[in-house]
């Protein structure tokens, strides 16, 4: 450790290395323990390791900005944000990012509608109701669920959820016709559709939400729960009116993180959501997300350097900005929450 005490460093160095082996009392002058080269070298090596993460962030920003610069020289921001269609490879091309953003948020919002409330309820069960033994079994299984690769959920969405939805819709058609009084109503669900992707993403993010929310709920001091019980609250009232509000910033942080995960999710949408960017709120239609588009182009044979290829960096930049904003919001909420019960 730092021994550069100004008082001791005035003492002349008394051949540090020579006396090192000696066991005699006070054989070594205090100033002899200069920082050894190894200690200094290690400090800088570790610092460099930490710096790698900073370089990564700057690298991502630099790549996205420089590679999308040629694109933005060609396509004005007004077109990029103003146009309604996204069809960079057509003639004439359209560059309206909004339809990709719309598809992304249609899928993410659909997923959030399922995963956020369900995740929170599961978290409440685990933290407030489950016996310690049940929790010790369920929590690890939940964490196991979180480790399933996304390509598996993509497979599942395309080959299980979509056929299931088609069957359900078909069997519901007569009822729907009767209810609406329109015998020509045939609601259809396309093979690639936003809903299947949403459901798969919901299943994927559910363990994440449940696990993070449970962590937040458990941080709420026991004293608060007891205070509420002592006032004659029922278990539900304790959970919903005291524990959940007390953990709200932590819960919000995990919600935001889950939505950010849904926005950035790639394989599920690439497999199940389709490749037709459009502005719609109908989850039964095929749409395209930002990530889905990037995959589509990078797998295709669009020549490098063409404006069609540069679009992926522009889309990547937008995706990066959106997710970073959400992440930072989540991080600041977590920080706030941690301070609350220290």
């Amino acid at each position, binding site marked *: 450790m730092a021994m550069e005490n100004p008082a001791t460093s005035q003492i002349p160095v008394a051949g540090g290395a020579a006396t090192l082996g000696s066991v005699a009392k006070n054989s070594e002058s205090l100033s002899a323990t200069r920082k050894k080269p190894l200690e200094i070298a290690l400090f800088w090596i570790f610092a460099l390791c930490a710096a790698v993460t900073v370089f990564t962030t700057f690298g991502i920003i630099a790549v996205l900005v420089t590679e999308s610069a040629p694109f933005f020289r060609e396509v004005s921001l007004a077109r990029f944000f103003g146009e309604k269609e996204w069809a960079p490879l057509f003639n004439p091309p359209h560059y309206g990012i909004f339809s990709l953003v719309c598809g992304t948020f249609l899928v993410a919002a659909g997923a959030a509608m399922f995963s956020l409330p369900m995740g929170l309820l599961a978290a409440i069960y685990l933290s407030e109701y489950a016996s310690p033994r049940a929790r010790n079994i369920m929590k690890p299984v939940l964490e196991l669920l979180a480790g399933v690769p996304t390509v598996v959920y993509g497979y599942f969405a395309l080959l299980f959820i979509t056929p299931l939805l088609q069957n359900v819709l078909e069997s519901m058609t007569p009822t729907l016709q009767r209810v609406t009084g329109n015998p020509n109503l045939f609601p259809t669900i396309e093979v690639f559709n936003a809903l299947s992707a949403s459901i798969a993403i919901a299943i994927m993010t559910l363990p994440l939400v449940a696990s993070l929310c449970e962590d937040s709920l458990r941080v709420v001091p026991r004293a608060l729960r007891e205070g509420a019980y002592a006032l004659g609250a029922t278990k539900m009232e304790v959970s919903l009116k005291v524990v959940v*509000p007390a953990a709200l910033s932590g819960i919000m942080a995990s919600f935001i993180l889950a939505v950010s995960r849904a926005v950035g999710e790639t394989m599920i949408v690439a497999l199940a959501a389709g490749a037709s960017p459009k502005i719609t709120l109908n989850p039964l239609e095929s749409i395209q997300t930002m990530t889905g588009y990037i995959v589509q182009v990078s797998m295709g044979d669009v020549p490098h350097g063409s404006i069609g290829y540069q679009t992926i960096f522009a889309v990547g930049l937008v995706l990066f900005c959106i997710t970073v904003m959400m992440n930072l919001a989540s991080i600041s909420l977590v920080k706030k929450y941690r301070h609350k019960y220290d």
Partner: protein
Amino acid sequence: MNTSSISNLADKAMPEPSTRKAEAPSARNSTPQFNVAMAAAGEQNATPVIVEAEKVDLFYGTKQALKSVSIPFHQNTISALIGPSGCGKSTFLRCLNRMNDLIEGCRTEGEVTLSGENIYAKSVDTVMLRQRVGMVFQKPNPFPMAIWDNIAYGPRLRGIKNKAVLGEIVEESLRGAALWDEVKDDLKKSALGLSGGQQQRLCIARALATKPEVLLMDEPCSALDPISTLKIEELMRELRSAYTIVIVTHNMQQAARVSDTTAFFLLGELIERGASAKMFTDPSDKRTEDYITGRFG
């Protein structure tokens, strides 16, 4: 056991609620120390028993934490439970509103009656019980919400939604806890911004808002500075006219200052119980004497 003065008082009949309307202002403005003697001497003989524990045994798993504890608590009195750490006094206090139910593996035997009803009977609802037996904890535990919402929490659970009515209860309770003048302009501010002493009085007000009969206090001053402690002690003397208070304390001066009767616990057993004035001057058990003279604990 010196229970002669109390055992005469075998009146376990269910008291009429109206009898609780005691002479509210009489206790105020007089110093707490002065009150003790008065209370111990006369008053307690006049009030009926409201809570009575009979042969309460309590087990954490297989470990027995309370051994056949029997204590009657009289209406409009302050009873102190004292004893060294881990003697079971807090555990016993938590038996009185069944807070121990929340602890995994905790089992209670024996009987505790509230106005003649066994609170451990199967048909008893802990929600209802805890409305009638309020509790204040060792560390102030205000909910992380506005002061107003903290106080209104209990009444809202009872289904009171009218803002004006709730407002009245909030003011009444805060006045009752001697906090109103300090916070009346900040009711919408977070309760976490209050000082420790204020937070504890807020917790007392919160308990008062549900209009309990009995108020349990688990070392309510142990986390507070002396001035805040004094305020809470004064408050307790005032509340005594309307509530029955049971307080666990580590602080024997505090027990002597505020309580009418004192019970001494050791290793899960009730060793001695009696009027505080006598307990602290002339204890009958050697162990009690050792404890209050500071020879152990």
